[in-house]
């Protein structure tokens, strides 16, 4: 029984983290039509910026996280505005650009910080015990922040002019432009929003796990899987799928071990796509 509950706790934590990453990834895909191969790179930059602020500049951790978000958002903005924007409708070109950016980022981090893991810990330590279940305090805090960020993102997308404009651009870019929404201003904003989320996740999660120039690789794979499971371009789908992926990953690893666990997740996604190719909440648009 305790394994069951422990797995649930782990799964929900994972789900919240994956949700932040998947939401950013699907925002970029839905609004810009770009598959962001550099998503893991922004995650790592978030981690390394926060590490640098704490370890090298001696700043308090919460401030370091905010700086990491600002830095990754700014970098995303600049990258979109000056590089992606020119080739935004050429899907192959944008794929190459984001892939190239990822290679530059991971090799750059390797060169600057070296291949070994950094000393970077969460400022709060220890676990809370609920009977036989252990919940590390850092996990609870990160879970809380992730859920708050998801809520904040929802508010921005569904309760502000900016959010409405982004969703309109995702639905029909031409008509949105004709209503006065400017892609040249809004696309960098959307990209920055997504990369800022990735940076936030990196700044929060790398001190819990480890920080080295390789930790960005699985981020892309998980984001991709989650977004496809949830339905490309669907925000609700991405969030839902993220929690499903986190929980399935936790349970299958706990009960089947590390190798079979990964297999279970991919098999489930494969089966789901066979019966429902558009993903869980993939769009079914009524052409009227």
């Amino acid at each position, binding site marked *: 029984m305790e*394994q069951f509950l*422990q*797995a649930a706790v*782990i799964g929900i*934590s*994972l789900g919240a983290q994956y949700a932040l990453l998947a939401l950013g990834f699907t925002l970029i895909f839905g609004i810009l039509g770009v598959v962001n191969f550099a998503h893991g790179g922004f995650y790592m930059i978030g981690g390394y910026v926060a590490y640098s602020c704490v370890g090298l500049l001696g700043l308090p951790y919460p401030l370091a996280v905010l700086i990491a978000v600002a830095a990754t958002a700014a970098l995303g903005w600049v990258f979109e505005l000056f590089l992606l924007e020119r080739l935004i409708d050429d899907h192959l070109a944008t794929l190459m650009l984001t892939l190239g950016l990822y290679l530059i980022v991971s090799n750059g981090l*390797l060169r600057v910080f070296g*291949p*070994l*893991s*950094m*000393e970077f*810990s969460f400022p709060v*330590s*220890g*676990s809370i*015990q609920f009977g036989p279940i*252990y919940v*590390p305090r850092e996990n609870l805090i990160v879970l809380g922040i992730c859920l708050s960020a998801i809520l904040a993102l929802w508010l921005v997308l569904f309760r502000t002019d900016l959010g409405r404009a982004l969703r309109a651009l995702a639905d029909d870019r031409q008509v949105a432009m004709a209503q006065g929404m400017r892609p040249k201003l809004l696309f960098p904003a959307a990209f920055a929003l997504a990369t800022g989320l990735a940076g936030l996740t990196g700044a929060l999660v790398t001190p819990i*796990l*480890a920080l*080295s*120039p*390789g*930790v960005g*690789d*699985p981020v892309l794979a998980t984001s991709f899987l989650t977004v496809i499971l949830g339905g490309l371009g669907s925000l609700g789908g991405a969030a839902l799928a993220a929690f499903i992926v986190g929980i399935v*990953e*936790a*349970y299958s*690893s*706990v*009960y089947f*071990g*590390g*190798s079979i*666990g*990964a297999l279970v997740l991919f098999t489930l996604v494969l089966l789901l796509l066979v019966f429902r190719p558009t993903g869980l909440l993939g769009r079914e648009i009524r052409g009227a």
Partner: protein
Amino acid sequence: MKTSVTLLAAAFSLAATVAAQAQDCTAKVGAMGPMSGGAAQWGLAMAGAAELAAAEVNATGGVTINGKKCKIVVVSYDSKYTADGAAAGANALASEGIKIIIGPVGSPEATGIKPVAARNEQLTWNAAYAKNALEAKYPLVFHIAPGPGTWSDAMVKHALKHFPQIKSVALVAPNDQGGTDIASVDAVAYRNNGVKATEEYYQRGTTNFAPIITRLLATNPDAVDTASSPPGDAGVIVKQLRLAGFKGPIGRMGGPGTEEILRVSGGMDVLKDFYWFETVAVTDQMREIDNIYRKLLGKEPVGGTALWGNLPAARMTMKAIVNAGTVEDAAKVAAELRKLPVEDPNMGKGLWAGQKQYGINQELFFAFGVGIIKDGKEVGIARIEPTN
């Protein structure tokens, strides 16, 4: 008068020719390993050891080949820690006529290079922990340092002395050859010493080990051993084990990386009770190597204890080359190599080993170290002498 001038002129030109010939004669030896990427330290340490050993021989005039004094030159190749990298390297070096290679480093490289080097009739060394690092059918392959098959038993005994409460252990390692070859051998050593052992393997690339830890703690082990998990992973495993309430000792019967583990896990207070394998039991004589390096090569050494660990293999190879009088006949050099006693002016005395584990006695076994941290304090690194 004219005759003496002519004689003098002839003598000078003869001397000049001889001197010129000594400078022209170079004997090429190869060095191989990952020199870029995450494992770059290890490859650079291999090349560094080869260069130092070569410089030492050249300082005494070089190696005599066919009556000529030749300078030994080391040619490096970056095999990138992959099987195809090492195989390509063997061919690339062979095309330059190089038959003696110090390197490569890791398991995938060893696997890749063995058949190709055999075809090219090249002598190679490797530092892999794989179960087939040496094979009887590849007599030109030598092993720089022993894998767990050789030292795990002695290490378990030493760990049990400090942590006698260990009656069961859970091993955690990646699920590829780099993990299974070591963890499975460790498990045997534990069992041979009366400790129950279970093995838990994870997908390489996993970043969050909480589910795996939940799983292995369900068997209630007294200790958890991270085997050959990369240090970054091991650090997270340690951190998450302690957060899950695990209070037992943690072991590492695998490769180097204690510093990184300390960094990632949060320090000695978190590690609490820890025992780990040190490839080299450091002495002052070993530290001298760095000074010798600086003096002979005029630059800072790279690779730390890894370079020291590779040095006996490099030096013994140079000695074998000198004794054989050739760099082109690998079989002849190998024969001379086998005759040499295992000893090094800085690293001390060792043994030829490997017959039991691999069926061929071509492994250099020097004293190794077992580090102990108890109650969050460093107890020290015990020196374990090589035994057969």
